[in-house]
């Protein structure tokens, strides 16, 4: 969950304030941000302040939160500030007060309590349906397209000769390449380190990753990234299983729609159809409940024929590192084989063992231990979950789903590879006195660039040197000025940049 929200959040935070102003014009965007990007406490704040006529004094808001939860409060307020939702003003009595910024407040109120029809949440298609598209069909379509994209990256097409391979459009391939998820050499597609990390993430995170790449590349193909972004938020607020009109959409939105259909995020019968359906990949984008993403994962990963539902996991791991995966999906098998020595393959089951070699191989390819563990965890078989639930009942602490020996060992195997940690930067040395050393060292710590220091050797290591060097220079001037006042030094300490200081001082 945390990883699923962090990437879009990071991206949004990097946008300039004017972009937010444009984005928040759309009620659907305001609602999507509210639903997905905010921690619960931040939601409370927004809801409390939203309908207030006057700004709320900061002290009043702060007493709502217990003093021991100060950290959560500050975190919530900082996120609201970074997303340009909450701003501080001064009231008439000169008291600092919070208020919700305007386009956001108006849009969220409109989203919550309704207003004139602004098409912000899409328009249901009124035309009679000649071919009914069911949710199951949409899931199947989304699964096939998304697995096609993944399969293209991992190169499973060779593995699955009999499967109907999905035809990926040129745009999809270019996007994957532009995002450095794959490298294309001639006819061969090679997955990159980033790509390996990508394929092991959960579907929701993957979709966001792709969409952010898409937004970033939108400018390059002549589309307004703000328009694309707000269209994505619109898509995320649509209803699964309903069809929507395309007639009032802008050319750029139509173009985006066609591109997203390649990924299985929306479905349209053909490019000129008058309506489109959002798939589960789109509608779970900004939903707050992580459980909603499970049915997609389930239908994406589960054994063929299962339509998702509760039992979505298929991997069993024993404490002796043996792994059993009840799947026939070539994609999942090739993902598992990235970090497992597979031994046998049955029609609905593959078995293997996680070994030091197999994990090291994965780590050399750029996969991290945490990625492996989170993949195993998100695909753990219901039996494993049931077992851990039974174990933890009665005890206070919940037992882990995966055997701790296995997860610990995977982490240890990774540590074995990382015998050293390297930080690029600059070593400051040759200070003549302790005092001369201490001031810049303390300054470096204050601006957060200090990595290492030794008082005994009078050396310290920083990641960036510009500010520290400037600090040292400014100190030197001060010293020269005082010294020149006292001893009437000859001009040898004068630096070229500030001769005037010396002469005026004397």
């Amino acid at each position, binding site marked *: 969950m945390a990883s699923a929200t962090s990437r879009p959040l990071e991206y949004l935070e990097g946008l300039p304030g004017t972009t937010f102003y444009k984005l928040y014009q759309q009620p659907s965007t305001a609602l999507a941000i509210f639903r997905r990007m905010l921690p619960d406490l931040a939601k409370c704040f927004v809801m409390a302040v939203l309908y207030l006529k006057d700004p709320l004094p900061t002290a009043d808001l702060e007493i709502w939160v217990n003093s021991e939860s100060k950290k959560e409060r500050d975190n919530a307020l900082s996120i609201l500030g970074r997303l340009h939702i909450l701003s501080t003003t001064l009231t008439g009595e000169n008291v600092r007060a919070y208020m919700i910024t305007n386009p956001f407040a108006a849009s969220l109120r409109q989203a919550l309590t309704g207003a004139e029809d602004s098409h912000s949440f899409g328009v249901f298609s009124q035309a009679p349906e000649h071919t009914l598209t069911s949710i199951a069909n949409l899931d199947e379509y989304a699964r096939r397209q998304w697995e096609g994209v993944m399969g293209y990256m991992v190169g499973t097409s060779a593995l699955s000769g009999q499967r109907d391979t999905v035809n990926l459009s040129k745009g999809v391939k270019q996007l994957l390449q532009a995002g450095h998820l794959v490298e294309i050499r001639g006819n061969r597609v090679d997955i990159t380190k980033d790509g390996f990390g990508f394929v092991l993430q959960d579907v929701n995170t993957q979709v966001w990753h792709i969409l952010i790449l898409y937004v970033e590349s939108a400018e390059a193909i002549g589309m307004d990234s703000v328009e694309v972004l707000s269209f994505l938020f619109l898509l995320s607020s649509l209803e699964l299983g309903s069809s929507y009109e395309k007639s009032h959409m802008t050319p750029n939105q139509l173009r985006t729609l066609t591109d997203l259909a390649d990924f299985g995020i929306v479905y349209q019968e053909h490019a000129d159809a008058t309506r489109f359906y959002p798939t589960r990949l789109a509608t779970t984008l900004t939903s707050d409940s992580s459980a909603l993403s499970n049915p997609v994962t389930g239908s994406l990963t589960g054994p063929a024929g299962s339509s998702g539902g509760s039992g979505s996991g298929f991997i069993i791991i024993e404490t002796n590192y043996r792994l059993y995966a009840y799947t026939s999906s070539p994609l999942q098998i090739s993902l598992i084989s990235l970090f497992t*020595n597979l*031994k046998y393959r049955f029609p609905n089951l593959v078995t293997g*063992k996680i*070994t*030091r*070699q197999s994990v090291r191989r994965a780590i050399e390819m750029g996969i991290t231990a945490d990625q492996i563990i989170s993949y195993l965890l998100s695909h753990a078989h219901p039996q494993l979950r049931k077992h851990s639930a039974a174990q933890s009942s009665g005890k206070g602490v919940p037992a882990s789903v995966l055997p701790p020996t296995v997860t610990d060992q995977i982490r240890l195997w990774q540590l074995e*590879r990382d*015998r*050293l*940690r*390297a*930080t*690029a*930067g*600059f*070593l*400051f*040395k*040759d*200070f*003549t006195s302790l005092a*001369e*050393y201490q001031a*810049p060292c303390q300054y470096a710590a204050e601006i957060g660039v200090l*990595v*290492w220091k*030794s008082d005994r*050797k009078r*050396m310290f*290591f920083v990641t960036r*040197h510009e500010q*520290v*060097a400037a600090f*040292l220079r400014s100190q030197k001037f001060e010293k020269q000025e005082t010294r020149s006042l006292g001893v009437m030094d000859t001009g040898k300490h004068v630096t070229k940049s500030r001769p005037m200081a010396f002469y005026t001082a004397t």
Partner: protein
Amino acid sequence: MPRAVRGLLIECDPSIKSMILKYDEERHDYIVEDLDDENHLVIKESQLQNLKVRLDQDLDEKIMQLDESESE
């Protein structure tokens, strides 16, 4: 006069540090500054890849591994 030197700060176990020191003795082409504590030193930026490969090779040779046989 204080000076600033560009480099990579390496943080590692004492055992790894002594291996790096040994490599440096050959041609003095790794270390910028030995920081005289157990687990830090500054090396040349360009040597990191080379150093990692060499360390991995030597460690693989020298460290005994438990039986990795795939007995099923």
